[in-house]
């Protein structure tokens, strides 16, 4: 363990310099959200639960045909989640409203990836296989993926699914926001174009926010005053307006802080430019040098004899 005097001062110098260099550059966490992304506004007061969007999504993404046909509406009796063969699903809720004939009024909720503005999945991905694009999509590049599934752990909407039965080349599966389609001029997501009642509006997120606010303002009796996705986890590209409180129809309450903020702040304040490991290295080197002649070897002789 020869740590010579010269080596020791070498480490000390590098340590000092690097700590000084970093102190000047440390900065607060900044959102990496694109300024003018596309989005979709889902108006739950309009949705009639026809499952046409599910079918369109299945078509445009060339997903495997489902066991039960898309015309089968009895499937709405069970609560479903998107999975590795289905990027979007519609669930039916009875939040308690009744019509004039005392019948419960259903609310239908379409679920898919929210394409968060500061996505947890993107921050988490070990290899940068997931990225947030300028046009708003959260895009998956399978060629970088190692299948660690940390994105699934991180996603607050529990969206990414996994091909658990593919032994060698499984993929993370989630709504693509029809990346290829909307990258073309005038292109729209499959689900938005098909909707017969225009429950899904595609457009720039900023425009959609204005539209949502307008609808809520003009029909205050029909809507609750909240746009789900405006502030949740720092904002999402997909947003919802509804006539019933979101907690009653399967939406979870989420903080308005972007999910990656805390972990990225911790990570970068500790490890940017590797300042803390370098400093620790220097300190340990110092300790090692200071104790280099700590001759308790005699002690061991005594102890050894006593054994």
């Amino acid at each position, binding site marked *: 363990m020869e740590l010579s005097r010269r080596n020791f001062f070498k480490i000390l110098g590098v340590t000092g310099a690097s700590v000084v260099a970093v102190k000047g550059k440390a900065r607060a966490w900044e959102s990496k959200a694109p300024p003018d992304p596309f989005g979709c506004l889902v108006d739950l007061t309009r949705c009639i639960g026809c499952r046409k969007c599910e079918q369109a999504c299945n078509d445009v993404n060339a997903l495997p045909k489902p066991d039960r046909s898309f015309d089968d509406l009895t499937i709405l009796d069970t609560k479903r989640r998107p999975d590795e063969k289905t990027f979007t699903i519609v669930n039916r809720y009875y939040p308690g409203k009744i019509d004039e004939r005392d019948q419960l009024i259903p609310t239908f909720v379409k679920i898919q990836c929210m394409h968060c503005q500061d996505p947890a999945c993107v*921050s988490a991905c070990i290899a940068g296989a997931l990225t947030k694009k300028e046009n708003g999509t959260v895009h998956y590049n399978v060629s970088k993926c190692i299948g660690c599934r940390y994105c699934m752990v991180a996603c607050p909407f529990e969206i990414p699914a996994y091909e658990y039965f593919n032994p060698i080349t499984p993929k993370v599966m989630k709504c693509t926001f029809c990346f290829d389609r909307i990258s073309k001029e005038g292109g729209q997501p499959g689900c938005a174009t098909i909707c017969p009642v225009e429950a899904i509006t595609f457009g720039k997120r900023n425009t959609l926010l204005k539209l949502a606010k307008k609808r809520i303002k003009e029909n205050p009796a029909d809507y609750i005053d909240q746009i789900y996705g405006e502030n949740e986890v720092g904002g999402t590209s997909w947003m919802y307006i509804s006539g019933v409180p979101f907690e009653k129809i399967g939406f979870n309450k989420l903080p308005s802080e972007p999910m990656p903020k805390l972990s990225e702040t911790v990570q970068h304040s500790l490890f940017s430019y590797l300042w803390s490991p370098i400093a620790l290295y220097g300190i340990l080197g110092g300790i090692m040098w200071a104790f280099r002649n700590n001759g308790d070897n005699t002690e061991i002789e005594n102890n050894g004899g006593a054994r």
Partner: protein
Amino acid sequence: MSHQAYPLRAKLWTPGVLVLSALMAIGAVIIVARFIGGIGYVSNLSTARPWGLWIGVDVASGVALAAGGFTTAFLAHILGRHTYEPVVRPALLTAMLGYTFVVLGLMVDIGRSWAIWKPMFNWNTNSVLFEVAMCVMFYVTVLYIEFIPAVVEQFKGKVNLPGLLGKLNAPSEFLMGLADRILGKIMWVFIIAGVVLSCMHQSSLGSLMLIAPTKLHPLWYTPMLPLLFLTSAIAVGYPMVVFEATIATTSMKLDSEMKVLAPLTRITILLLGLYMSLKIGDMVIRGTYVYLLDGTAQTNSFLIELGLGVILPWLLLLSKKVQTSRRGLFITCTLIVLGVLLNRINVFIVGYKPPLGDSSYFPAIGEILVTVGLIAALMFLYRFIITYLPVFSAPGKEVSS
């Protein structure tokens, strides 16, 4: 040094080792099944529960329980307390094997095992997992380098390969001579690096969950997770050394190393005390004690973790009677080890309850058999290596008495 480590040269194929081999064989069969039918074929992992037993135990707990490697290296080589030298090599061996199996466990768990190298060329420095992976990669390398002297000591000047391989005798001798001369001079570089890398990824394993505040139970979710993971890893290092040294010396009929082990546990009073106060303080400040008596499985698991795994052993350590009894120390250290193990299981499995999807999860029999098989393989290799390489330095019982 008066006490040279030496190969134990005991009988290898004892009944215990045969049991280990059987467990290894079963685990191997399941691993083959995983690579034929997919992860879903042998596990209960789902969309809501993408991480299960393999990440919670094979990876997270494996890393925590290998902490003896860097804590003893710090004590003996950085603080220069050479009295502790006899436990450094066994702890180093545990760490080396522990991390090797962490990597093997990962290879089974990740979907595209063949792509495991990709993060090296696709950096995402925002990702906590990226940092953990890089540290583990470098640390495994450091551990292997630190272990080279044990190999060199055994074979230098004695290389005598049979038949055709005989041609390799001279080159191997040369390499070992080279390693011997160079490593002695620069080993300090790796020793410090090992401690630094350990501190980095031990804490970052805790940071992994910071990104999922809505999923991890509030009893565990705290911004302090990285600090709690680091302090618990440091606290479990020496108890783990006591735990395995006691088992190894008993099963190999060696003189117990109480002279070295007893003072280690006195340091542990301090280290475990630090972890305990951080953990309890965090609970008090965040007010999460309100959950303590609500009777859910998670809360009970927390109570066991804190009560039996941290507070009880800490109190036991204070007692003079425990400090001087080999049995007492062993029981106490076992409690500490199990406490940290349960903590990792709690953070990654029990406390992880996603609110939307079907969050139920219990490891499938296949997952359990793989984990058991990997642990059996680790124990087998440990025994194999201490039999043929100089790791232990405690004299045999009959010699000393």
